[in-house]
């Protein structure tokens, strides 16, 4: 018998994502991913000064503020053919790599670990055994028995005070929870420590970006941070040394805790390497430009069709034609209408809403369906890591090898690289990328210091806007994957603006040819133990780090805000 399950919303703060699945014989047979919020930020930008676009676009999402600011200035600079000083690249690179670390750590520990970790089961753990286990995995100083005992006490107090009450009608004790009490307690300890770790990343963004959550220091043409070796009020050597302390602390946490935890949880949930692959065309872009033009990048990116890394094709520079010419968006199944049939390139993109009800075979989402040369593509850390491996990027290969080796030894059998094409593989790739991001952070810090040592303190090139029409696009490998902004500028004013965001690639509905998107494809054949508590659906969707870039944030006064409807 077929059973329909609706989960709405599956994310809260980041915007409303609704997932519908049909379950037959204990597994998913059909899936729909629907963005439930209208996102029309593009319309707000029309007629505005392109130099202001970044400040507005960074408000479209509550989690990815920084990434929209960076991508927006890159788009306008691309339209103007404007090079920016290398110091500005280094400062921007530090902000976005620190932001990525923040995002990856918070995503794993605070947004998705609880899909796999049973907090209540941790109450039964023996803290001494937990410490022994943790210390056998890593020499992190906070793995000792005192820390584990304190964590257990804290958890007991928390549960005893009734604060965990809501947790009890969550998924604790769900049959799909497999970790021992000791592994669960170790994860809870690291959940708490991750709150401290993410603060180091946030400090870096705040110190460089002047303000967080919304950075203030970017500008079309560079950054507004004055640099000096001898003044107190600007970016000084002293301040830069302070930044390095935060970077080192992040490196310790990522290498000794995050990567190890993901390997351990991956080994215990090795069956989840079989589920969730979905769309295995992978698209990612190179990032962390080290020259003024954007032709030399620290981390590679490109396109991999059909899970075959032998067919990797790189994207090589800002303005890359292979990327530029491959992107289209379809609204056949989205609540918009175009003035002509077929998908549209973002430069020609239109944002005209046309709402119908949720129609299984018709329109059912506020997200458009992007394609790359006509194919659906998955974006995100997994795409980025696979491209890194295909391109021979050594830091990516090192962290990926280490993580797979750790997980293999815990499991007692070899986990192949192909296991990454899965729900749990997306978590593994995100941890690998976090390792790479920390190295990128330090490299840019070093590059800035070296360049300042040569006496170069330039951070800004003034933009000039020509009469007539120019077009440009900017890309950024954001924490959730490839983000691009596309703009048409006429007589110095924005004439068109389209954001093609990572979650549009991954969460978009069926396309022009009715082909399902990455979220939908990844849910197919997922086991469902209990249709009333569809934890497995959440595991797969959360592995993408879902975010719909349209955050509505309202305090609801005592209303049930989430519905699970099993029909």
């Amino acid at each position: 018998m077929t059973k329909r399950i609706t989960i709405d919303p599956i994310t809260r703060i980041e915007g409303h994502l609704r997932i519908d699945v049909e379950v037959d014989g204990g597994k998913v047979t059909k899936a729909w991913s629907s963005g439930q919020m209208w996102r029309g930020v593009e319309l707000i930008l029309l007629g505005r000064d392109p130099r202001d676009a970044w400040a507005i676009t960074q408000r479209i999402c509550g989690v990815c503020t920084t990434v929209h600011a960076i991508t927006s200035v890159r788009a306008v600079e691309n339209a103007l053919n404007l090079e920016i000083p290398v110091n500005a690249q280094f400062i921007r690179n530090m902000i976005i790599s620190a932001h990525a670390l923040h995002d990856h750590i918070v995503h794993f520990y605070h947004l998705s670990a609880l899909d796999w970790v049973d907090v209540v089961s941790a109450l039964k753990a023996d803290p001494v055994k937990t410490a022994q286990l943790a210390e056998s995995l890593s020499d992190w100083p906070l793995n000792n028995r005192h820390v584990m005992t304190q964590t257990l006490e804290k958890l007991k107090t928390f549960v005893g005070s009734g604060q965990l009450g809501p947790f009890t009608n969550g998924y604790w004790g769900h049959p799909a929870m497999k970790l021992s009490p000791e592994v669960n307690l170790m994860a809870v300890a690291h959940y708490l420590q991750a709150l401290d770790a993410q603060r180091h990343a946030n400090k870096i963004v705040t110190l460089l970006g002047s303000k967080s959550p919304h950075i203030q220091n970017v500008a079309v043409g560079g950054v507004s941070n004055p640099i000096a070796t001898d003044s107190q009020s600007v970016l000084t050597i002293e301040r830069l040394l302070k930044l390095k302390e935060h970077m080192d602390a992040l490196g310790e946490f990522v290498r000794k805790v995050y990567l190890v935890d993901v390997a351990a949880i991956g080994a215990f949930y090795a069956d989840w390497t079989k589920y969730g692959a979905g769309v295995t065309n992978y698209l990612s872009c190179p990032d962390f430009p080290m020259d003024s033009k954007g032709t030399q990048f620290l981390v590679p990116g490109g396109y991999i069709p059909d899970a075959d890394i032998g067919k990797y094709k790189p994207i090589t520079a800002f303005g890359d034609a292979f990327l530029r010419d491959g992107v289209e968006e379809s609204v056949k199944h989205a609540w918009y209408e175009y003035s002509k049939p077929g998908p549209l390139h973002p430069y020609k993109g239109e944002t005209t809403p046309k709402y119908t009800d949720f129609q299984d075979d018709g329109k059912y989402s506020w997200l458009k369906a992007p394609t790359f040369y006509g194919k659906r593509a998955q974006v995100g850390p997994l795409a980025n890591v696979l491209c890194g491996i295909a391109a021979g990027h050594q830091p990516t290969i090192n962290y990926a090898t280490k993580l797979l080796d750790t997980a293999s030894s815990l499991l007692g059998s070899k986990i192949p690289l192909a296991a990454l094409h899965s729900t749990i593989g997306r978590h593994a790739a995100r941890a690998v990328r976090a390792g790479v991001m920390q190295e990128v952070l330090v490299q840019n810090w070093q590059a800035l210091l070296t360049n300042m040592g040569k006496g170069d303190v330039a951070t800004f090139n003034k933009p000039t806007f020509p009469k007539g029409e120019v077009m440009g696009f900017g890309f950024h490998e954001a924490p959730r994957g490839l983000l691009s902004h596309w703009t048409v500028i006429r007589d110095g004013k924005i004439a068109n603006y389209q954001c093609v965001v990572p979650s549009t690639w991954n969460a978009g509905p069926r396309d022009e040819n009715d082909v399902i998107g990455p979220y939908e494809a990844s849910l197919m054949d997922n086991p469902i133990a209990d249709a009333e508590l569809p934890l497995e659906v959440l595991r797969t969707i959360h592995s993408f780090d879902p975010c719909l870039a349209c955050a509505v944030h309202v305090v609801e006064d005592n209303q049930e805000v989430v519905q699970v409807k099993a029909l």
Partner: protein
Amino acid sequence: MHVVILGVGNILLTDEGVGVHAVNQLLERFDLPEEVDVIDGGTSGMDCLDQVSGADYLLIADCMRAKKEPGTITRLTGDQIPAFFKTRISPHQVGLSDMLGALNFHDMLPKTIVLFGIEPKSFELSMELTPEVGAKLSEVVDNLVAELKDIGLAVTPKRAA
């Protein structure tokens, strides 16, 4: 004593951004003592954690849907502030209430939390408040100032330029 005033909301969606507009107006109209940090939190959750952790007082201005007249201001404190992890499906989706939940779990929750919720009229795409909500903005700011005065902080209006 450390006081944090946090304005949250999405300024691209009309009244959704009322909390942010409120803290901006607060900064325009008043000189605040050193103990007070004002944060434009936008729609961020965890990104504000660092600045909020360890505060003695946390004052929040946010849009709140409670089926009242648009512009109605509601004051909530302590346990009245809803949804500490209270969503059945996603006990770990990170929003404002989840950030508070995380702080609580970590023993870093401010001792006193007061939330001013303002009933919205519209979430249309616009960077301006509706007239109904806009008319109440100065009252929201006055409420925030009154809270500061109640805890003994000196708040002085800026002189007209």
